[in-house]
């Protein structure tokens, strides 16, 4: 009897395992072909010559490589420190207090993070005066602008989740404001600070759009130098060696940041609602929010203003020029807009097809897949693009002339975002709701249709919107793989910026405004479209 029972429960478990393996299979297969294979191609190109191992020592030890590596590290470190300094006051104000319009402020703070890097870079070109606009300061400022949202989001959410009563308890035990900050706030926030810092560092270390636009010819990071060597100088060997270096550095950062993030644990609940600020704190909160929002809105505003600036006044000339043929592109700029929409839609669909089953597996507790999926996020866009160029140039998968290579590359970059936004929602599902529905007589398909899908409609819409926005703004990988007759918006912007003349810059600004509007619209629509069903 006992053996019979065990056999029964095994048969049960076996079926479940098979279903789970199938769910994980799609993302694993996708990553194997479009992520692992390009990485292998990079390794082969950099380490194997004529079938034998040949480490490119000369490239790795060259003084130019050392300089580039040093600058990459340096700018990422300083950018991270500045971002923390800029973001913490806002995190404090948003986490510790409730005030009218707080949710609006929270949403506005996130906007820069959704903006494509090329738009951010161009906005700083528009904002900064001549002489500063292509300098290390411009790079640092753009990185801060882009990443403040990470600090506010990661540290703020953690801070808001800490029980306010801890501070009350400390006060009743005789701790003054300074003692409370040093002995309570700082140690409690340490894991969140470390996690936020590691994420920001990773983004700045692998930053591409900001560096190529604002760094000009004077400043290069590993990421931009890979592009420079591969796409401009056609020195694939040097590019591959640099990619190898970048891969090692990024892997180290990803491991560290993953460990730091895990220490954060899940969401907590505050002990009681945040109070309204009073007295001096009220002044502080109002000042912080006003100054932060003011500074964050400057670059986009400057972009809009510059896009409307024409010789001798303001007008829509630059936008009108989007419909004209131009020597910068093989098609009109308007076609780039259409290409971008087409590619991003396809990429979002692919990212969802891969990301939804992946998120299901991750929500079930598959740590391995979680880590695996975050790799493309860290692996840096230019490296992926370069890997694509190397891997898919020959049969069996020759995608060089295929129109699919662009959405595939964009989907690879967008998939981690889908998984990250969907997995928590999947994990937070109440397992009893499908059971209640079943007991009430709903068939498994009715349970899916009536309960599970409607409950996931909003998270799915958010994930889709995010994937679309990321694909729309993707630049680092796309610029490697896109064909000249199919430019995307970010690539078109880059081409215009690379040409002399105020008109070209104006057209780039106009394209940036269009891209910014599209990305913002995608974000807004995905948050709101699902009106009643998502209540």
């Amino acid at each position, binding site marked *: 009897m006992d053996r019979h029972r065990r056999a029964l429960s095994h048969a049960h478990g076996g079926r479940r395992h098979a279903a789970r393996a199938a769910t994980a299979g799609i993302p694993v297969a996708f990553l194997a072909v479009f992520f692992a294979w390009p990485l292998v191609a990079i390794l082969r190109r950099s380490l194997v010559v004529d079938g034998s191992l040949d480490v490119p020592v000369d490239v790795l030890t060259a003084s130019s490589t050392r300089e580039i590596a040093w600058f990459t590290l340096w700018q990422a470190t300083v950018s991270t420190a500045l971002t923390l300094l800029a973001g913490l006051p806002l995190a404090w104000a948003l986490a510790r207090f409730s005030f009218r319009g707080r949710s609006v402020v929270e949403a506005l703070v996130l906007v820069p993070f959704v903006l494509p890097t090329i738009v951010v870079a161009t906005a700083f070109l528009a904002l900064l005066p001549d002489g500063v606009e292509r300098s290390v300061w411009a790079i640092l400022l753009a990185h801060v602008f882009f990443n403040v949202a990470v600090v506010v989001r990661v540290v703020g959410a953690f801070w808001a989740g800490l029980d306010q009563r801890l501070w009350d308890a400390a006060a009743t035990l005789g701790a003054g404001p300074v003692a409370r900050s040093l002995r309570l706030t700082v140690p409690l926030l340490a894991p969140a600070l470390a996690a936020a810092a590691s994420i920001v560092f990773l983004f700045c270390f692998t930053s591409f759009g900001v560096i190529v636009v604002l760094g000009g010819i004077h400043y290069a990071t590993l990421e931009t130098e890979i592009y420079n060597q591969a796409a401009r100088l056609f020195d694939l060997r040097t590019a591959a060696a640099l990619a190898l270096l970048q891969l090692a550095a990024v892997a180290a950062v990803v491991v560290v940041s993953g460990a730091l993030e895990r220490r954060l644990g899940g969401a907590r609940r505050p002990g009681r609602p945040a109070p309204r600020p009073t007295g001096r704190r009220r002044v502080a909160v109002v000042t912080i929010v006003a100054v932060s929002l003011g500074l964050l809105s400057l670059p986009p505003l400057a972009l809009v203003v510059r896009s409307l600036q024409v010789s001798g006044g303001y007008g829509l000339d630059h936008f009108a020029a989007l419909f004209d043929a131009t020597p910068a592109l093989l098609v009109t700029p308007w076609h780039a807009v259409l290409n971008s929409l087409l590619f991003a839609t396809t990429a979002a669909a692919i990212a969802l097809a891969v990301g939804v089953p992946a998120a299901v597996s991750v929500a079930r507790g598959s740590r391995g897949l979680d880590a695996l999926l975050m790799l493309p996020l860290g692996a840096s866009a230019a490296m992926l693009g370069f890997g694509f160029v190397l891997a898919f140039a020959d049969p069996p998968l020759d995608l060089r002339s295929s129109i699919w290579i662009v959405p595939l590359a964009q989907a690879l970059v967008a998939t981690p975002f889908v998984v990250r936004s969907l997995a928590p929602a999947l994990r937070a599902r109440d397992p009893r709701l499908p059971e*209640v529905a079943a007991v*009430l*007589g709903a068939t498994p398909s009715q349970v899916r249709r*009536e309960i599970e899908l409607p*409950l996931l409609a909003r998270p799915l819409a958010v994930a889709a919107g995010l994937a679309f926005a990321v694909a729309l703004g993707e630049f680092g990988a796309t610029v490697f793989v896109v064909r000249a007759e199919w430019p995307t918006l970010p690539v078109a912007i880059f081409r215009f910026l690379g040409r002399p003349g105020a008109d070209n810059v104006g057209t780039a600004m106009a394209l940036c405004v269009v891209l910014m509007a599209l990305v913002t619209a995608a974000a807004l629509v995905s948050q709101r479209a699902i009106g009643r069903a998502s209540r």
Partner: protein
Amino acid sequence: MTLALEGIDVQLSGRRIVEDVSLEVPSADRLAVLGPSGAGKSTLLRVVAGLERPSAGRVLVDGRDVTRVPAHRRGIGLVFQEAALFPHRTVAENVGFGPKVAGLPRADREARVAEALELVGLAGTGERDVTTLSGGEAQRIALARALAPRPSILLLDEPLGALDGPLRLRLQEDLRALFERLALTVVHVTHDVGEAFALGDRVAILRAGRVAQTAAPDDLWAHPEDDWVARFLGMRNIRRDGDRATVVRPEAVRVQPGEGATVLACDRDGAVVRVRLRRDDGVELDALAVGVGAPALGSRVSVEVDPAGVVDVPVWRGPLDTAPDRE
């Protein structure tokens, strides 16, 4: 409809949660399954509902074996501890869910919803958003939702567990009236002795996955199966002697001013006062007094034990040997 469980065994990830449980609930009868947390009560309920497949044993409804019938075809209602309302639907949509998936026409559905809301005393709340309901309201809506498909058997998993105080008492009374009115066969799981006694015609005590005793509340109180059951029900006058234990029910201990014992503690719980005494021979006893004028702390009293309230039971030596003290 009658419900019968025969030799139910459940293993979850290698652990035996429920062992060889057999129970019978006659039609329109109410069974309370009482036990400490972790005894396997909820798992047993999930087996009856069809949410969990037993590794052995059968579930019979009116003599028909439904062990392999999936939950959605069993027609058995279930109310969870914390309501578990569908957050994306209104009250009416929650209550109307069962009739809807059963394919009832709209007019019939609306009638069922109105009827079910009326039954739980929340008529007219149909358009409300379920997230705005209070705890007691949510639990009533969950009950209405379970009743709307008109199940013949209703299962309740700690339905009052998330509520407290007067609200809990009121809902308990309402439930009892409702069960009688609808002539429902009910299985109701709880860890609360008072709730089990109030809502169950019979009470099955579940201990470490096995049924320790099944009896009507009065019989259970009069003749606990062993000293563990007596202690779990709240009796404290238990003296072990080898393999036997003597249980003195507190209401059999009569106290009057006099000599022979000292009052150690007096705990008032409503009309009842639980008096803790130490007899001069060193034995401690619990007694129950009613009303006002209970003996004062430290005062001297005489103790008389009604022999009808003394039970001789075997000592329980199995798992949870010493655990169930409800202090």
